[in-house]
């Protein structure tokens, strides 16, 4: 189970804006440690955002997404109080799901 994410989902008119800040090193596999050895690649490769049971965004990330990935997107059809959940999976098979209510 990875580190918790911060999720904010806010409703303006009929549009929900979601902002997520994930905590993940996003190692590219190209960096070397102090001894000169390559640090193995380990990065979030997939993210799925759902509003209740409907997928509202499905993303694939490569290692060049910045450490502690930030993501922002908007969708229609959400109401205040509805749950938005975000799930990420990384190349080591670790995953994390967090949710937030639309405000």
């Amino acid at each position, binding site marked *: 189970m990875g580190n918790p994410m911060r999720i904010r989902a806010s409703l303006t008119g009929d549009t929900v804006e979601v902002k997520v800040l994930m905590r993940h090193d996003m190692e590219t596999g190209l960096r070397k440690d102090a001894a000169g050895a390559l640090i193995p690649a380990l990065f979030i490769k997939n993210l799925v955002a759902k509003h209740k049971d409907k997928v509202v965004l499905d993303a694939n990330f490569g290692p*060049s997404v*910045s450490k502690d990935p930030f993501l922002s997107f908007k969708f229609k059809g959400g109401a205040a109080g509805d749950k938005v959940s975000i799930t990420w999976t990384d190349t080591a098979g670790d995953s994390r799901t967090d949710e937030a209510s639309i405000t």
Partner: protein
Amino acid sequence: MNQQRRNVMRITAALGAAFAAGILHPRDVFAAEWNAAVFDAKSLAAAVKALGGDKFDVSADVAIIGPDIAENGAVVPVSVSSKAPGTDFMAILVDKNPSAMSASFNIPPGTEPAVTTRVKMASTSDVHALCRANGKWLVASKEIKVTLGGCGG
């Protein structure tokens, strides 16, 4: 066979039947496949080919927003958006990175074709917003200058 195993069989059979009947589409349940060919592509053209396209056009309907100069190549904020109707896929590519494709997004109906994230840039490079709208591949590009390279190499 005990009751639990009967239940597992029943549920598996029901799910299987649902998949077969097209009621439960695999796309709804499983996340998009991480395509190594796409994420290994060394250029925009190679990435479009790996995605199953062949040509792409520069389009004023696609926008890419980012800084002109990124002080820190490790964290460059980039927004891509599309006004083209039927946009169901968007991606961010950094030309001069070891692998051009940074991130790709499947946009279901009801979601705005607009995403913002932060990417690493190894050096000054063109950054591309690639979109697929109604099957056509559209692109917008912007050069972002990098003073401190972001791949840590």
